[in-house]
Each structure stands twice: as structure tokens, then as C-alpha cells.
């Protein structure tokens, strides 16, 4: 029997200390991905530190930033009036993810740390550099219809699965952390690490770091924003391609999902739009210019391009 220790903590500092003391420990929040991955052997934590009693469930608005506790559930955040009124891109992205049942359990912090749906990552009988560094990447020549075309490396082409994170990188959200050395903040655009030659490292988090919340700067009044997601079935499915657009007056921010190894801030598209605010086709073309498709995911280049153009036409057109 695989035995497992379970502890419940009441204070964030206690949670950090529990983890810092044990390299084989992991936090447990909603558990909607983590417990599945433990059952199939992909994640092998021996000690779970339950953080669901921590006081990280508040959503507050101080006039500038929306401050979201890490344990706020996806469904709860989507139902916040300020989110519906001022952050349609966030609301759309939340409601495009998972199912109501999962959204009622899954937390914002957990969603940011969601693991890829790459089937080789999840199947311990196959080769995966992310799960087992140096083992190789079976997806390169294997089943990869829904793998990434941006931010890939010869060692990993796994797609980042989150919808929420795509909206949040477009919104310039900031992650609040508490680590063994105290609290700090990291902009979400700098939070995720592309695979390069260390696919196992997915974020800048160090062991023991606890995500305590996300701060979302509210766009100016009148900003239009939205999230467009294309998928194989109408609901409860990961994106084949998605686009988040935040069209502040004078500036359009863009991110792509479903096509990249990390939630993909589309800087090149934004640069084109800064010069020519309605050059949607050129912006999308520029963002996808260096896409690296493989045998069965070449369609994503065109799909992502069109998804971005549609999203820009919908929310960024004058």
C-alpha cells in the first residue's frame, strides 16, 4: 500500500513550514487535478498539507486591484459582480473551464498550477521529460494533435491547459507568494517557465512557496475584453486554441491559450497593434510567425491565427 501522510494547517506560515521541512510534501487545495495525478502515479507526494482551512478565501476590491485569495473557487470568482462588470475576459475564461462541479471545488491558486493534459505526462509507462527528466518525450512523434506550437523545446511540447491563466496574463495579474523567506510578488507574465531543457520546472515557485493570492489590476472603465475558446466539444473540454483580449483605451493586451507551453502573452501581436490598432491580421500573423507545428498539430497555427483575429475583431475593433 502506498501510505500517505495528511496534515491540516490553519496558518499560511505553518503551511510553508510544513512543506519546507519535507521535500516529499505537497500542498492540497481543491485536489481536482492533483489527486487524479497521484492515483495514476504521475505525482508522488508522500505527505499532503491540506491548505483549505487557510484564510485565503476573500475577494476584495480596493478601487485599483481586485485581490483574490488563492482558495477562492473558480465558480465563486466567476459570480463576483465586479468580475462580471469590469472583467468579462476573466469571467468568460473561468466559465469556459471544466464543469460547474469542478469549478465549485477547484481554486484559483490551484488553477494557476494546473498540470498539462499531455497523455504521456499522465502515463507512467511512457517517456516524459516533465515527469522523469532525461527519459525523452514520446509526444514528439506520438499523439500530439493537441500539443503546443509556441514555446516548445526539443524536450517538451506539452500544452499549458489553463483558461484562467490566459486571461490573467493578459490582465497583467500579479501572484502573491509566501515562501520560507517571507512574502513576495511575481508578475504572472514572469511566473511560468517555458520547458527549454528543464520541462520539469514549470514555474518560478520554489519548494515551500505558497500561492496566497492573485492581484488583478482593473482595466479602465469602458475597457472591452473577452475570452474566445475553440474546442472539440461544446463544454467540458480543453482548448484547441483560445484568445484573451483586453482592449484598454489606447492599448490592446492579448494572450493565447491551448497552443503554447505556457499561458502565452502575445507581445508580438501587441507590438503590431501599438503601431496599427486595427491591423488584426498582421498582428495575428506576427504572433504565429515562429510557430513550430509537428505532424498532427499543424492546424493549430491557422486555428490560433483565426481565433486571435476573431477575438480582436470582437473586442478590439473601434
Amino acid at each position, binding site marked *: *500500500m*502506498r501510505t500517505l501522510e495528511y496534515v491540516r494547517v490553519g496558518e499560511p506560515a505553518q503551511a510553508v513550514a510544513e512543506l519546507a521541512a519535507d521535500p516529499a510534501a505537497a500542498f492540497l487545495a481543491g485536489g481536482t487535478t492533483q489527486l487524479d495525478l497521484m492515483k495514476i*502515479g504521475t505525482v508522488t507526494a508522500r505527505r499532503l498539507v491540506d491548505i483549505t482551512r487557510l484564510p485565503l478565501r476573500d475577494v476584495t476590491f480596493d478601487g485599483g486591484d481586485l485581490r483574490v485569495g488563492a482558495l477562492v473557487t473558480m465558480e465563486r470568482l466567476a459570480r463576483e459582480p465586479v468580475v462580471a462588470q469590469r472583467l468579462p475576459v476573466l469571467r468568460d475564461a473561468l466559465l469556459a473551464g471544466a464543469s460547474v462541479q469542478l469549478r465549485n471545488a477547484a481554486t484559483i491558486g490551484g488553477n494557476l498550477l494546473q498540470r498539462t*493534459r499531455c*497523455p*504521456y505526462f499522465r*502515463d507512467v*509507462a*511512457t517517456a516524459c521529460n516533465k515527469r522523469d527528466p532525461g527519459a525523452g518525450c*514520446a509526444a514528439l*512523434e*506520438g*499523439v500530439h*494533435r493537441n500539443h503546443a506550437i509556441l514555446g516548445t523545446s526539443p524536450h517538451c511540447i506539452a500544452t499549458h491547459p489553463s483558461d484562467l491563466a490566459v486571461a490573467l496574463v493578459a490582465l497583467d495579474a500579479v501572484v502573491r507568494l509566501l515562501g520560507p523567506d517571507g512574502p513576495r510578488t511575481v508578475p504572472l507574465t514572469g511566473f511560468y517557465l517555458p520547458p527549454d531543457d528543464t520541462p520539469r520546472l514549470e514555474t518560478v515557485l520554489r519548494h515551500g512557496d505558497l500561492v496566497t493570492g492573485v492581484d488583478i489590476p482593473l482595466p479602465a472603465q469602458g475597457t472591452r475584453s473577452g475570452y474566445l475558446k*475553440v474546442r*472539440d*466539444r*461544446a*463544454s*467540458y*473540454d480543453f482548448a*484547441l486554441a483560445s484568445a484573451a483580449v483586453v482592449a484598454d483605451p489606447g492599448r490592446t493586451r492579448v494572450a493565447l491559450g491551448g497552443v503554447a507551453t505556457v499561458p502565452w502573452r502575445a507581445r508580438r501581436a501587441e507590438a503590431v497593434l501599438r503601431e496599427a490598432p486595427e491591423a488584426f491580421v498582421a498582428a495575428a500573423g506576427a504572433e504565429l510567425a515562429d510557430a513550430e507545428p509537428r505532424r498532427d498539430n499543424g*492546424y493549430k497555427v*491557422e*486555428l490560433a491565427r*483565426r*481565433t486571435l*483575429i*476573431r477575438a480582436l475583431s470582437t473586442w478590439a475593433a473601434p
Partner: protein
Amino acid sequence: MTRTLAPLVGAALDRVDGARKVAGAAPYPNDVRYPDLAYAALVRATISAGRVSGIETEGAEGAPGVLTVITHLTAPRLSRGPATSIGPQPTPPLQGDRVDYDGQYLAVVVAGTREQAVAAADLVEVRYEVDEPVLRTEDPRAEREENPWHFDTTRGDPAGALRTAEVRVDSTYTTPHLTNNPLGPFTTVARWDGDDLTVHDSTQHTANTRSALAGVFGIPEERVRVLAPFVGGGFGAGLRSWPHVTVAAMAARVVGRPVALELTRPEMFTGTGGRPSTVQRIRLGSTVDGRLVAIDHHAEYPAAMDDAVRYRVTPRGAGAYACPNFAARDVQVRLNVPPTGHMRAPGTAEGLFALECALDELAFRLDIDPVDLRLRNVAEVDPENGRPWTTTGLRECYRVGAERFGWYGRSPAPCSMRDGHRMVGYGMAGVTFGWTMMPCRAAATLHPDGTATIATSATDIGTGTYTILTQLAADLLDLPPDWVRVELGDTRLPKAPAAGGSGLTAAVTNAVQDACRNLLEIVRNGHPRGTDVRAEGASAPPEREDVAPSGAFAAVFAEVRVDPDLGELRVVRLVTAVDGGRIMNPKLAASQIIGGTVGGLGMALMERTTPDPGSGRIMNANLGDYLVPVHADVPDVDVLFVGGPDPLTPMGVKGVGEVGVVGVAPAVANAVHHATGRRLRALPLTVENLL
């Protein structure tokens, strides 16, 4: 004596077992518990071809709670049970070191709890000598069996007629490997008492599980009892006695305790069959006014190396179109894939996808309305033997379905209808479904308190057999429905055929009708008061030389929306008109058609079992990655029944278990062509094909 079939037969009675199911009181196989029950977990191959060169079981044997670990080195020698109407029994498990597919059982661990068994199974270490697997039908190393089950047919001169036809269609269609995925993971609980074996099993055919196990263990059938009063769905996966059933019984014998083996979802993908992938070339020849002169249909599909089921993709009688020249050829190709099996409308769903799409291609080429083309070619007699059908509701299906759908309101040219930026398409397909009936027995008992019991070994896999037999017996015995009790799913009860092939309802209702008639005969002749009165009855397929028994007919109409930029396809409306003979219960029958339609939608839009191209290992063996439709994918499904009782049997039932599935994928694909001008010949119809 004549009892009328009214008021209950034909009424929309609620499921009689519904409350028990909702309350969790209906015992499914995985609910069965014995005081000393042990639990089994499987160790499966992680290669597709080769042999086991070493298997280390010491770690597992020493793990907490473990009773035994059985491998091919230690397993009792087993035989293969007798073949049935659907083909040979599966290869007995754990009988050698050869590995023929990824997922093949290599060992079973039995322990005091399920968790202990699962944990210990992880500790079994297997070493392999790996061979290069044969994974594609075009691989020159693959063994091809032409006409494997002797269904190939040639009538007239199809080659000559194709050569001289005024108009021709020649297209190749492909369909993917699909997995049945009933909601209830298959479970077997086996218990030996000396040489008597009792098995609780997720089966659609208790009699088959019994004869299979009796054959495997070399014991008389009478010593095997199979129980399946409730089964969590099957969709054809439960028609065979798969290797895990044998493993459970073997494990119970070895440890001398009852053993439960519940398959995991990933194990369902390799252990209970599925719909094989197909490649089909279809050639049609026609006159310019749309009279078919030739149909040539060639289908190739995989079968496992050492286990194949009786299968047919090319539809019988060229799909029942009045065509003087036709040829149908099936080729089975042996690959290192998990055993294929039967998935709702096996073969027919794949074959009719190709045929009904090719007919749409022909209609477009001829500039003839697709419904009119089919009406011009309706087979008034069975094309295989020239006999008149017992009933022919097909024209009525087209008429009623088209009218309800508003078919003739469409603008015929492709790409000519829009809803905002989305393209709109209408498509349709016709279905002539095969007729099946197998011998069946049933018993009717009248109790002194005035209530009655109907009993037969048939299973109700969620289709409503409990309910329709209650309705039927209540009418025949003139009792209120809650005075009738129906007992099913037990081989000690009179022998019934499979809940499969759309054939159970015809078989079992005629047998119950016969039993009730015999019972009333006894009652009328007088019988001692205060005792049970029991009578048996039987039904058998009528042997008629003068008519062709007709199965169900249907016409399916679909409306789709396609986003021309993003390639997103949504089905927004479906109408199915069905001639199913006598409809015992319109609510349950419509549910069957709706359920079949959703299965057809999955086949059309998203379902696909995906192997790793190099290793053959299935990479989406879970319900997160193997997509089936969710509510948001399913539009309103409008079901209409036409026709009436079929005169072939006293009950006039044809069976509607599968007819709802088969027309959906071609109707949707044809609607996509109408919407976009794109002819998609490969399922599923996913985004990358529509950009």
C-alpha cells in the same frame, strides 16, 4: 381466448425499476458483497508485441493483504468455451508468454481489499522481449483474411454495371476505432462452492457467460450460475465473456474465496472490445435520373492477432436499395491491437456511414434531392432474395421525417444558407436495419394472492425490459402492473438470448406472451386453490420462405451550423423517424432512439480511441481524453414512430436498440457538405477538417 394488448402495451409507462435505481437499491455486479470477499487487480502488458521474458512477483506476494499472484507460469490450464452466433470465445487469459496487444493481462493479484490488490499489482515487474508491432492495416506484414465470416455477396454484374453507368461515385471513407464506455465499469464477482460456480457479471447475455465459463473450466453448464439482474450499460461490450470474467473465476478458485474484479476505466478500453477502425471504398453507378445500377462496397478493418468476432461492415443487401448489381466484401486484418468487439450497431454504423454519404455525393452530382434519390431506389423486396418485406415503413419514415424537419424548405445548393456568420446545412440519411431474433424461453407464474411473476434469464441493460414485460404480462393476465413482478438476469431462469442485435424485445415478448397464454390455459382448466400456477413459453424465429423479415427502418435529418473561420461544428437539430414495428412503450423506445442518437453524435463529432502511432498503446483511455458528447453538444432530438405491428411474429415487435445510432453520422456529414461544400469522408468531423 383473446386478451387485448391494451391499455398498458403501447402506453408510456414510467420505468418500473426507476425508483430502485435512483435510491441505489438496484444491485449491480459491483454492489455484490460476500463476507470473505477478496479483490483482484490486473497487471497488463505495456507493449503491443513480444513475449514476457521474466515476471517478478515476490514484491507483490509479500505486500500487505496479498493472497496470491497468478501469472502465466502459475495459472491453471484453461480451455476455450464453445463458439456462439457472434463468433469464437475470447482467448483464455494467462496461458502463455506471448504478448499480442498492449493491455493484455499478464498477471492478477488477489488481496483482502481492492486497495491492497491495486497497490501490490504495481509491484509486479515484467521484463519483455519486444517485437516490432503490426499496427496498420496497410502494413505488408499484416495477415489479411478476405471474406472472414462468409458474408461477402455478389449479385448481378457490379463491375460491368459500374463500367457502363451513366454516373459514378468512387470514394473512400474512414471511421476510427471507438470504445463503448458504458457508465458502469464491468465487474465480475465469482464464487466457487466445490465445483459449482456462481458469477455476478456485467453481461448482456447470461447464458453466454455460463457456457463460456463452463467451457473454460471444463465443467457442466448446470454447475455455473450467472447473475446479472442489473447492468450499468453495455452498448455491446457485454455480449462476450471477456478474459477478465475468466480471471475472476480462476482467482476465486485459486484462493478458495469469492473474488471481485472491477475493471478500471483504462482497462475497459483494452478489455471489452470496441468498434474497429475501418477503411471503406464504395463505388456507386447510377442512371442520370437517379436509378442505382451498381453498388460495390469494400471494407477493411483490424482484428486482434488471436481473437476475432464475427463481423460485417458492408451492409446486407447493399443497405436495402433496389439495385440489380451489387458486391460487398469485408477484409479482416490481424494487428497487434486489443480485441475488437461489438459496439452498438456493430459494422452497420460504419458501413452505412460510407454508403449514406456516397449516396449524398451521388445526389449532389445528379442534382437530385437526397430524399428523392432514396425514394427512387427504395427496395420494395429484399434485394438478397427477392422476397417481399413483412412491413416496409421506409417511405413513411422519409415522408414523416422530412415533413417534421421542414426538409424541403432548404436551399439545395451548398453554402447557400447562413445564420449570421455561421453556415447552415441540412443533411439526411436512410436506414434499413437488419432483423434479428433468437430462440427464447420465459415462465409465467400466478400466485395465490393474485399477483404474477414473469421470469427469464435475459438482462435489462438499461433499455427497459423490466418495464415492457410488466406492461405485457399485466395486459395478458388482466392485472394491474404493480401486481406483476419481473425477474431477469439469472441463468436459473428460462434461457433467453442476448440483449443485443436489437433482437431481445422481439424474442422475449413473444416468449412471455406464449407463457402467459399457457398459464391462462391451465387456469381456465381449473387448478388447486392456494398454490402457484406456473407455465413456460417459448419463441423462435419463424422460418418463412415467402417473406423477408424486416428490421427497423429509419430516416434521420440533421441541421448543422459551421463557423467558417474557426471550423466549429455544432448540430442544432435532429429528427429521426422510425418504423420499429409495435412500440411496446413509446417513452422507453424514444429514449432508446435519443440515446442512440447521442451515440451517433459522438461518432460524428468527437469520439476516437487514439493509439500511440509507434507503440500501439492507447493514449486516451479515460473519459477526460476520450470525448463523448455532453449536454451542450446535444440539441433537441425529435423522435417519431411510424408504421405498426409487424405480422411476422404475434407481438409484431422489430426492436429499436440500434437503429437510432446508425443514420446520425452520415446525416451530419451530409449536412456539413450542404453547409460548407466540403465533403468530409473521415470521422470524426473535427475542427482541422473545417478550417
